[in-house]
């Protein structure tokens, strides 16, 4: 069992948890993820690790309530135990001293891009970060990102805070201004990652994305997470989760993300209904 040590709602419906997982905290590197199960009947869901503390053995995950499992997690409190937690899974980000790099985080993707940004800066890079969300309330981890990067640019889709516009528009501006960007990391919802790749392509800048595929075991055993990259089938869990986004077959990836949409919706609605029943 894995105890929830701290729980904070950092934005409406976006939760940050710190969980005691000393073995994972000891080995994890930026870019890796965990798979968790809320209870015995739960679904195994992958979540990127947002932060870790090797000394106190805690890992941090950040998620938005989108389905039944995240709705259940939302209901859990400090001191509660997760039924299962396994990791660190997947390959770490390729951190090196590249020179100037750009990291882009959209929505809860900000949490995923945060440890990568921090590590890139520590490795000596000049890191320009762009974070964005639909609206002011949904901008998360701004202070942390500010510290982690050389320069931080913030945007909201509706203009309620900082710049108005999509992160991809800012990315375009940055790539226009900065002539020597060596690499871009873009993490967020699939359409955002796809758009970021399209923006960066004319500049000839390699764009790394982190794919949030549907998984079961997360160790290469089931192939649920497969994706076509450069014409070859890859497993996100063991070959990724990061890939060169210019080579990803995005329409296929997005189709596969929607495989269980109806059932996921049904699950969440049934859960919500049951919760209301219990409360009223």
């Amino acid at each position, binding site marked *: 069992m894995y105890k929830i040590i701290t729980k904070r709602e950092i934005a409406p419906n976006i939760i940050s948890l710190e969980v005691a997982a000393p073995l994972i905290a000891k080995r994890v590197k930026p870019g890796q993820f965990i798979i968790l*199960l809320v209870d015995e009947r739960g679904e195994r869901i992958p979540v990127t690790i947002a932060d870790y503390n090797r000394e106190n053995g805690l890992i941090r995950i950040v998620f938005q309530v989108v389905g039944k499992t995240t709705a259940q997690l939302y209901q859990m409190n400090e001191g509660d135990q997760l*039924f299962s937690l396994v990791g660190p899974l997947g390959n770490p980000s390729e951190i090196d001293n590249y020179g100037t790099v750009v990291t882009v985080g959209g929505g809860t993707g900000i949490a995923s891009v945060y440890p990568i940004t921090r590590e890139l800066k520590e490795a000596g890079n000049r890191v320009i970060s762009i974070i964005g969300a639909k609206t002011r309330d949904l901008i998360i981890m701004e202070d942390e990102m500010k510290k982690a990067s050389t320069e931080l640019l913030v945007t909201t889709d509706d203009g309620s805070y900082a710049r108005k516009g999509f992160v991809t528009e800012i990315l375009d501006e940055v790539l226009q201004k900065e002539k020597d960007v060596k690499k871009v990391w873009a993490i967020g919802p699939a359409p955002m990652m796809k758009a970021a790749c399209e923006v960066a392509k004319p500049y000839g800048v390699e764009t790394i994305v982190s794919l949030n595929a549907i998984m079961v075991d997360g160790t290469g055993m089931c192939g649920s997470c497969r994706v076509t990259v450069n014409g070859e089938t890859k497993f996100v869990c*063991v070959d990724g989760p990061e890939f060169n986004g210019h080579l990803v077959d995005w329409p*296929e990836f997005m189709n596969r993300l929607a*495989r269980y949409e109806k059932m996921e919706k049904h699950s969440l609605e049934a859960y919500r209904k049951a919760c209301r029943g219990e409360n009223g």
Partner: protein
Amino acid sequence: MAELIPTPERMKRSQRPMPEQDPKKRVCNFDEVPLGYTTEDAIYEAQRCLQCNPPPCVEGCPAEIHIPQFILKIVEEDFASAYLEILKTNSLPTMCGRVCPQEEQCQRACVYNKMGRPISIGRLEQFVSDWARKQNTKEKLPDSKKKGKLVAVVGSGPAGLTCAADLAKMGYNVTIFEALHKTGGVLTYGIPEFRLPKKIVEYEVDKIKDFGVKIVTDFVVGLTKGVDELAGEFDAIFLANGAGAPQFMHIPGENLNDVYSANEFLTRSNLMKAYKFPEFDTPIKVGKKVAVIGGGNVAMDAARTALRLGAKEVHVVYRRTKEEAPARAEEIAHAEEEGIMFDFLTLPVRTLGDEKGNVTGMECIKMRLGKPDQSGRRKPLPIEGSNFVMQVDMVICAIGTTANPIVARSATNVQTNKRGYFTVDEKTRATSREGIFAGGDITRGSATVISAIGDGKKAARAIDRYLSSGGSLKKSKK
């Protein structure tokens, strides 16, 4: 008490059939298909045994079970002793009785086999072990001296469980590391409930825990900790992490939404209990008309699971004929009884889909058999111009697995062959690195539960010899 009957009378008797759930009923549930022998069935069948000396059947059993001895105890209606006789060498009898290919093992060696009616050793083993499970008998371990040595076992499938149980019985301190949240490996995620009920797997695992074996779940060796790190903490290691990675056909359309690997389909259903969705949270899709590619036991399991999940029509598509199919005859027969259709001499060449990624069909080509290939089976050859489209809306690929490299990558100087399987000494299961042993599918590719059990036994013996002669990984070099 029943007793042995005169030999001529014994020889006249035919095999007692296994009572089974009616095919029409069983396709609507996930309950076990064979119902198990009654006491009367078991005694009748046991009385047929000629009690050969030396017994050829034992030669055919990788678990080295004292077969005539346990059968004699059944005749004597001393089921407790029959059970103890089996347990002397096999720690997983309720499973072996159900999923071993006995017709290839002990029963093939039975002297009655020439007449086509070997003793139903598997059914008798199942009867005895189920009897013991219902009595909730706890086996008393012989008082073995604690050896004070630590052994790590990677993987809680049949090889790992057997090795751990045997070593624990010898007095070693054993820890099993399991990547998933549940124990049992392929017994849990791969073999469906209707062939191996999960409560039976849990019962066997609990029994092994009672021997003092510690099981750590949610621990991916290679990621949570590497083999090299474990080598600094344990005196010996047994690698039994399974074959792992599913193979695909590498044909166009293979990543369409409703193309599953058998591993994914079965893991969702068996491990995650998706067949009970929404009571359990993991979803699973099943089409109206499903094609399962492959001719092995896993293909049969996937096909029969799809039927139980509500598919209207399920086709097994295999490029050779029934004779070459690697599945057990019994599994093919069960599938046929349930209404699974077989498309032999058929090879898929392309999966067709719409723009949303839904499967709309599968293009296949007809095959014919040519001369025997390296496997000794006649090679399937495509018949030019025979392409046709099967109208299916879901495809399950059950064409085998390859080695998952996660464990091997973290193990310095443990050699693998070009297919990624650990290379081992056949008799001792020793790898190229002192103190590290390996067995099960990660040394041979997808095989059977019983061969994994055999490997576990051999490795336990070799590990005992290694540690008894003063060996220890902690002291040895990489």
